[in-house]
């Protein structure tokens, strides 16, 4: 069992509050991803959990035991650093076993554990190499191996893939997902990359400026972003966000009028690129615009369309679309495709609510 609980967790560096009264529960065997823009405090939060930073206020408990004052080594956690932090003068085997050696495990146990971990990560052939003789992906696997060997209650990852090239990043992402299943491990994973968050997480924690904006499954965050920040952050390309006005019976904007009933006042309408359809359709809000750019990705394409008053909309198209830049395009948006955010940025309502 590994249950982590943060209550009103706060971190101040001098007068600057970096983590601001944050509550979070991580359940046994869960893969939780902390995601947010650079500088929002993700690493700081992870390091508070790890015991590498003091907690200025609030409580951290693991399996019901208060951890605030417990030294890093005795929290039963293992961390994989962005830089990998491999000890340069030690071989791969020594890197993986140094924690066990410090703990005074006997040699036979250490050898078994290292061999088992090396097998899981396909590192057997590299055990006698020094880190500088390894590729980036291999180093990454050694860093993960070093964590696995210790059999921690919770694995902590701080942007572990951001030093890898795109192909390797994808491969390691799949490998991490596989390991999570295979080890039945609890993992907390920090990234600024929402694609990593969407693909790996059981639950995503979206952070912004030291606070949590929303916690939920990838589907929940995608389908029902709690606020403008999450709406803009989750999803690639971004959700279209257009300034609008509600009169209590409908919401009108530069891209048309939507029969959505929310409180009167200024609002923002959000529409995902894949929810905008080509052509004029009955029962939908229709508009027309000029295609600025078409990006072809193979399986799909994205058109960047300037609506009547110049408002830019991103529209998803089939991969082999004939639509070209410069063309005039008719578009329709169903009322169920539009999300409305209030003047404070919070989600207002989505009609009809499915």
């Amino acid at each position: 069992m590994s249950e982590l609980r943060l209550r009103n967790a706060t971190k101040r560096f001098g007068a600057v509050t970096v983590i601001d009264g944050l509550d979070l529960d991580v359940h046994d065997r869960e893969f939780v991803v902390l995601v947010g823009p650079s500088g929002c405090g993700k690493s700081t939060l992870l390091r508070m959990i790890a015991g590498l930073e003091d907690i200025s206020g609030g409580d951290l408990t693991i399996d019901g035991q208060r951890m605030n004052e417990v030294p890093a080594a005795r929290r039963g956690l293992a961390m994989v650093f962005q830089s990998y932090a491999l000890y340069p003068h030690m071989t791969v085997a020594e890197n993986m076993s140094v924690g066990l050696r410090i703990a005074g495990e006997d040699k036979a146990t250490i050898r078994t554990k290292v061999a088992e971990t090396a097998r899981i990560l396909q590192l057997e052939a590299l055990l006698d190499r020094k880190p500088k003789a390894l590729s980036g992906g291999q180093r990454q696997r050694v860093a993960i191996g070093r964590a696995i060997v210790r059999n921690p209650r919770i694995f902590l990852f701080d942007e572990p893939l951001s030093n890898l090239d795109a192909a390797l990043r994808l491969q390691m992402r799949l490998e991490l997902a596989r390991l999570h299943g295979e080890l039945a491990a609890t993992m907390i994973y920090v990234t600024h990359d929402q694609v990593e968050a969407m693909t790996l997480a059981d639950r995503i924690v979206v952070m912004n400026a030291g606070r949590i904006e929303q916690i939920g499954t990838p589907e929940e965050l995608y389908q029902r972003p709690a606020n403008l920040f999450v709406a803009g952050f989750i999803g690639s390309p971004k959700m279209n966000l257009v300034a609008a006005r509600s009169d209590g019976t409908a919401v009108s904007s530069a891209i048309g009028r939507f029969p959505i009933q929310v409180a009167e006042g200024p609002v923002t309408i959000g529409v995902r690129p894949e929810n905008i359809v080509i052509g004029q359709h009955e029962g939908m809000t229709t508009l027309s615009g000029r295609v600025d750019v078409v990006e072809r990705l193979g399986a799909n394409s994205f058109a960047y369309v300037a609506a009547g008053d110049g408002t830019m909309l991103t529209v998803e198209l089939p991969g082999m679309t004939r639509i070209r830049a410069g063309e005039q395009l008719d578009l329709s948006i169903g009322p169920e495709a539009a999300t409305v955010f209030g003047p404070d940025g919070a989600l207002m309502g989505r009609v009809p609510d499915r």
Partner: protein
Amino acid sequence: MKAQTLRRIAPYLFLFPSLLLLVAFVYAPAVENMVYSLFSWSSVRTDSRFVGFDNYRELFANPIFWRSLVNNVLYAVISIVFQVFFALVLAAVLVAGVFGPLLRNLFRTAFFLPSILPVTVVGLLWQLIYQPTIGLIDQVLWATGLQGLSHVWLGEEATVMISVILVSQWQWTGYMIVLFMVAIQAIPNDLYEALRMEGANRIQQFFHITMPGVRESTLILAIITIFGAFKVFDIVWVMTAGGPNNASEVLGTHMYRSAFRNDVSGYAAAVATVIFFITLAVGIIQIRLQRQD
């Protein structure tokens, strides 16, 4: 075509002035010195006489030479202990943040200060401190009831060399601490944090990360320390001039006295040649050790 030629010879053009100076003032005199060491001559007479290895024979038969050599070795060993081992450990303690940033900077500055003082000033200062009865050390010994330990520190054969050597340690250990701090700070902090999470205490962190991380720097600083110990002259000359009774003689003072007091220049050149080969040997060992990485 012309530009290409220029580009090819440009590096040599840049090197030429410094090479010229090196040859004129270092390599040529070094070779010349070896030639001189095979002659019997004096700086105030124009005639000189080829004597082969007579100067070396005389040298190796001279107990003062051996005493000097032993003193230099002692100098090197004690300097390694203070300026490499102690300095490394102290630097690690200071970098580790055991003290707050304010205390750390205070200590660093305090340790570093002696190294910017001129050697003559340091020598005179410590002559005062070592004075019998009125010197600081004797005063402290008397005040604490330890007067039995009192010595004429610079006047007794048994204590003079170690007294001078300790002054050098006082002057240079802080300088080495600062150099080691720079080397330690270049080690990524992640390594310490990773090992800390694995349960390593500070001493284990020192042996697993700091020591291997500063291996290269340590080697170089150790070699520089040994060089310095074999070439030492100024502090000894200022404090004791090799006395009493040659008890604090080192190769440097022995050579100087031979050349400029006893006016046996060929003999002095032989001493210089011996110093040269000792430092050369140390240098070769350094290069060998460095290649092992």
